[in-house]
């Protein structure tokens, strides 16, 4: 059932802020507390806010189950793919091949307390993005499926 106009406008204004905050937590997982799982849960909470403010029937027209399932599959395959790519470099499975290598996320980090740089981290930021995608798609899909099972009470 649709909520009133004030609630809908407030959800419209708050949801981009929640989305950017969740993506910030995912992206800076190797510098500050956070990471893939925590950021994905925050973004799924923002999606739950929109589903509650607008009724389920309306949100069902915007989000399709296949796109969310595809997002989840891309997340899990990306995680396994980044780990399998280490075999192409001649090392073992799950070896950190981007650490201190000068390419994508490869600045070396000296020992000790420092103000962190975003360019460090090896393949940990790539894995954070993959896991964030997977948790976002998975939790939103669970919320949508459970909302579809609510029966209308005969009053």
């Amino acid at each position, binding site marked *: 059932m649709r909520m009133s106009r004030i609630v809908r406008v407030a959800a419209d204004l708050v949801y981009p802020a929640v989305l950017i905050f969740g993506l910030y937590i995912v992206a800076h997982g190797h510098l500050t507390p956070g990471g893939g799982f925590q950021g994905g849960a925050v973004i799924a909470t923002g999606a739950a806010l929109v589903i509650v403010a607008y009724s389920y029937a309306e949100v069902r027209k915007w989000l399709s*189950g296949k796109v969310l399932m595809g997002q989840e599959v891309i997340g*899990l395959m990306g995680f396994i793919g980044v780990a399998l790519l280490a075999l192409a470099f001649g090392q073992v499975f799950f070896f950190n091949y981007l650490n201190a290598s000068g390419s994508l996320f490869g600045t070396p980090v000296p020992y000790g307390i420092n103000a962190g740089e975003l360019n460090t981290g*090896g393949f940990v930021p790539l894995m954070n993005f993959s896991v964030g995608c997977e948790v976002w798609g998975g939790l939103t899909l669970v919320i949508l499926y459970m909302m579809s099972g609510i029966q209308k009470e005969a009053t």
Partner: protein
Amino acid sequence: MKKEVVMIISLVIISAFFMVVAMSLTFGSPAMTDMDDYFLRYGQEQTGTNNQCTSVTFDFRGFDTLGESTVLFCAVIGVALMFRRMQGGEEHEDE
């Protein structure tokens, strides 16, 4: 009523046993810290991250995270199987 009384008495005895064990642990000085001292000393040069929890989750113990992602994926598939129709459609009646 008798079954519940027996259950609660046995649970109290088990909780007393747990409490004796909990009193003998020391809070604030862990027993063995060799592995974590290695992670804190060499984590920054071997993984290149500042956050040691993330480096342990994704690099030093990455197989646990792989299993956990698979469990979450299978749980979402399980929920999708329970609600096989979304918003309309007729109900399937097997045989």
